[in-house]
């Protein structure tokens, strides 16, 4: 009985308790309404979620002093202690936004990023390989972005009035010396890497981080993939060659290795499709790839990527000087043969330590051997030893360069995304050039020139986040080159501010140094670093499925290399200079036209420079004032069929007219006439179709792509005869064009996935 009484007593207050209504409004510190905030009376089930007006309301039977908390992702949780004895209690919250990488502003000045994981990126990794006209070359896809020039007749990526050698490539943080395949003059070169091995690409058109150096204009920063999702075997067959690879993921999913071989030979293709030059040997490439990746701990990762590449090309073109001599009968041939062997090994290691420290170590070796041979042959293929027919300095070169690089970056994460990064870099390079210089005495050895270089750099950088809307990066880089025997210090600063409604403004400033190219360093002149100062202003607006970028920049060049400098011992000096400025636009839209993803790039470039043998400061022959690209992609999921197209336009480029102002004869040349002529505008269209099909568990992709199907006339410049041999006071000239109007690629890529799911389960249970 007593117990029953007690029971009643105990339960009575619960039943009889008066309810209190707690209500209020939730905003952020700026007064913006917050929807979906979880309001909880701590220790109970009572609570509510703020609605579209930022309001909440709930009832509780709790009495006296209670704690109410407000929690919301991306904001600091808030707790308030209140008394709930009244019938109604009003309690408002004002939450402070946490700085986090989902919301924080990203500095976008000068950087285009292709990544699948990070936000705010312009492209994803698939975009790189599905851009029509890129033909599986990462650099080809980057050429459709603003800032890049449509220079297809020379090696390298030409950015914002810079030469091809002003763009450098970095893999997992370390510099790659020979990023492009061996090539012959006027035909351009491809990147050496298979784009599928990278998970992220950053293409900077200026103002890049202090972690990278020795690139006056642009850095292409590539990050290799970590462990693959499963083991797989791949095979490919195409109109240019065949290849196979195998990738194995260990049972415990902690390591993987892969091996690949690719063979390219254009002989069959050139038999079918006539080229305007004679190939004694069509481009032939053997490439062997190796990779090994291992998780060294829960957070540590060691990666190895390496390849060996062997390329041979041997062409014959009509000697232009012989055409000047007699443009019908005496057609001598210029033979150009190149054989290249290139080995590359890259080790990278990253690990996180206690107290938010992180380390990145890169170790890289490369070895490159070039054998270049040029000859002038008559119709019977006999050697012609007559200096009248060439102005080339060398007839044959044996080149050998070895490189060892090491780079260490330490990173300490402070609170609120603030980070300090610092480290050092050391590069050892050895170059041997054995040249056979004189045409009249073929193959008389010139002494081997050996240059050795010890390059060291130290850098420090700090990411500063004031709020999610304001961020900055301050960095400095110091470099020392043994061959120049000089040091430099380069500051880098950038900042971003997020505007209301998905817009943001970024600024970047930086000083960038680069050593003169190897051919000038080898001449042992007393040279200095070349320098470029960048100023960039960027606006980005990114509503859902659309992106608009506008960028304006100014770049000032100092200490560029001048050749044929009178009074200088080696005729070389750092007396050149120049500038580049422009406005660029990028617009990507996945929404406006249903099912079609497209982007438009436009670059306006105003640049002049006085360097090399230039007679005055002019717009250089690799720079076009207007460049535009339209890239579109359409994929029919039901049919598993896709079409990608790319149209590019570039206004005419200046070229040296040797008949009006010949820089090789500066004393008689009329400098005012130097580089006033321009080529015709450049137009190109590329289209590619992909069809995906699984045939008996083999995933296959069929590709057909055609470059320039409409046959636009493309002229990159003109080659002139070395001497006026027929005495008509005019040097004969010939347009520099692609080797064929069109290029057609047909191929099939097959993949056998090896499912080790069952093993994985057994391991996990």
């Amino acid at each position: 009985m007593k117990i029953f009484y007690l029971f009643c007593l105990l339960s009575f207050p619960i039943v009889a308790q008066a309810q209190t209504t707690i209500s209020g409004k939730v905003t952020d510190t700026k007064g913006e309404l917050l929807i979906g905030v979880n309001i909880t009376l701590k220790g109970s089930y009572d609570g509510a979620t703020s609605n579209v007006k930022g309001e909440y309301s709930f009832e509780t039977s709790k009495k006296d002093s209670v704690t109410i908390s407000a929690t919301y992702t991306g904001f600091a949780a808030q707790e308030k202690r209140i008394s709930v004895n009244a019938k109604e209690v009003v309690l408002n919250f004002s939450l402070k936004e946490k700085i986090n990488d989902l919301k924080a502003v990203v500095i976008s000045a000068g950087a285009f990023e292709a990544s699948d994981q990070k936000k705010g990126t312009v492209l994803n990794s698939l975009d790189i390989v599905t851009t029509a006209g890129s033909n599986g070359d990462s650099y080809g896809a980057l050429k459709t972005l603003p800032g890049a020039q449509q220079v297809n007749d020379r090696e390298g990526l030409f950015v914002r009035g810079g030469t091809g050698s002003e763009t450098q490539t970095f893999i997992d943080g370390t510099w790659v010396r020979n990023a492009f395949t061996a090539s012959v003059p006027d035909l351009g070169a491809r990147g050496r890497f298979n784009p599928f091995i990278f998970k992220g690409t950053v293409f900077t058109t200026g103002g890049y981080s202090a972690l990278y150096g020795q690139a006056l204009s642009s850095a292409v920063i590539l990050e290799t993939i970590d462990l693959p999702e499963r083991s797989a075997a791949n095979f490919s067959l195409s109109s240019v060659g065949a290849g196979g690879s195998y990738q194995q993921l260990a049972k415990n999913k902690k390591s993987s290795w892969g091996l690949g071989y690719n063979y390219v030979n254009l002989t069959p293709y050139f038999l079918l499709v006539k080229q305007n030059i004679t190939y004694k040997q069509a481009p032939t490439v053997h490439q062997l790839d190796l990779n090994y990746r291992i998780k060294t701990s829960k957070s540590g990762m060691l990666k190895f990527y390496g390849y060996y590449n062997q390329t041979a090309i041997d062409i014959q073109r009509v000697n232009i000087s012989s055409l000047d001599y007699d443009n019908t009968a005496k057609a001598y041939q210029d033979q150009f043969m190149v054989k290249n062997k290139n080995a590359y090994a890259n080790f990278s290691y990253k690990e996180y330590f206690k107290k938010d420290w992180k380390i990145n170590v890169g170790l890289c070796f490369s070895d490159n051997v070039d054998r270049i041979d040029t000859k002038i042959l008559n119709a019977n293929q006999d050697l012609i030893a007559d200096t009248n027919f060439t102005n080339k300095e060398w007839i044959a070169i044996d080149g050998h360069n070895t490189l060892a690089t090491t780079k260490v970056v330490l990173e300490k994460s402070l609170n609120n995304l603030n980070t300090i990064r610092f480290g050092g870099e050391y590069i050892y390079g050895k170059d041997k050039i054995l040249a056979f210089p004189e045409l009249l005495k073929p193959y008389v050895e010139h002494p081997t020139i050996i240059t050795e270089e010890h390059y060291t750099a130290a850098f420090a950088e700090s990411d500063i986040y004031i709020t999610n809307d304001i961020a900055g990066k301050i960095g400095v880089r110091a470099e020392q080159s043994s061959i120049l025997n000089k040091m430099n210090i380069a500051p880098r600063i950038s900042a971003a501010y997020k505007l209301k409604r998905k817009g943001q403004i970024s600024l970047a400033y930086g000083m960038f140094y680069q050593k003169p190219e190897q051919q000038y360093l080898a001449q042992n002149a007393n040279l200095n670093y070349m320098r470029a100062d960048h100023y960039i202003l960027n606006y980005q607006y990114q509503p859902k499925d659309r992106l608009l970028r506008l960028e304006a920049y100014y770049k000032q060049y100092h200490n560029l290399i001048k050749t044929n400098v009178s009074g200088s011992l080696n005729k070389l000096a750092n007396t050149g200079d120049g500038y580049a400025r422009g406005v660029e636009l990028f617009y990507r839209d996945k929404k406006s036209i249903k099912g079609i993803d497209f982007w438009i790039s436009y670059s306006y470039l105003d640049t002049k420079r006085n360097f090399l043998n230039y007679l005055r400061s002019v717009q250089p022959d690799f720079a076009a004032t207007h460049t535009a690209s339209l890239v579109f992609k359409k994929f029919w999921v039901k049919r598993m069929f896709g079409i990608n197209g790319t149209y590019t336009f570039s206004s005419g480029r200046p070229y040296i007219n040797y008949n009006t102002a010949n820089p090789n004869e500066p004393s008689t040349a009329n400098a005012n006439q130097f580089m006033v002529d321009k080529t015709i505008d450049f137009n190109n269209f590329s289209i590619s179709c992909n069809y995906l099909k699984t045939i008996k568990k083999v995933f296959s992709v069929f590709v057909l792509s055609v470059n320039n199907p409409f046959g636009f006339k493309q002229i990159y410049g003109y080659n002139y005869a070395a001497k006026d041999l027929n005495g008509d006071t005019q040097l004969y000239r010939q347009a520099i064009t692609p080797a064929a109007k069109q290029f057609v690629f047909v191929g099939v890529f097959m993949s056998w996935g090896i499912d080790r799911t069952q093993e994985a389960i057994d391991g996990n249970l």
Partner: protein
Amino acid sequence: MKKLFFSLSLLLIGFVGFSQSAEYTSGMKGLLMKMEASKSPEALHAAANGFERIAAAEPKQWLPKYYAAYCYVMEAMSSTDKEKIDGIVDQADAQLEAALAIEKNDEIVCLQSLCKTARINVNPMTRGMKFGPQAARLLETAGAMNAGNPRVFFLKGQSAFYTPEAFGGGKDKAKEMFTKAVELFKNFKPLNDLMPIWGADDATKMLAECSK
């Protein structure tokens, strides 16, 4: 007196225990009904918040965390803003991690698989390659823990349905899985009325869709 005190305290403990469990059961049931009725991302988010409140008050129960995660995944799946998906799925993953620390079971692993699938939606072309196999692996693990879980087959069917044939999916494969799921759902008896039961209606609907 001692005896009385003892029985009183026993009773009290029993009473407190009973009342808590009753409050838990009714609280959960109320939220489950609310969850069933929630279709919009906002409503699902509010339901998730409710489960999170119970989860905070009942740190030893895995079910509130499980349902909070379920609501988050559904919110992510129904969200029209693809940029928000990762943030929401992160919350679901955190709840499931915490649930697994309490009890390791096939339902939680099953939901982890759904989280991976939700992440694919951000960009199927680029993410399918990564998260597709991860989602499939988790379903295999859940199936190995309990071969009779109909939701494993339902989710397998769904991923096959939305994966193009060229990538190893297709309607035929999906139909096979949905048939198995429907069959298992018929005989599925949850341990108690708070245990997961979702998927039965959708499996039947999807099976009909495959047969079209």
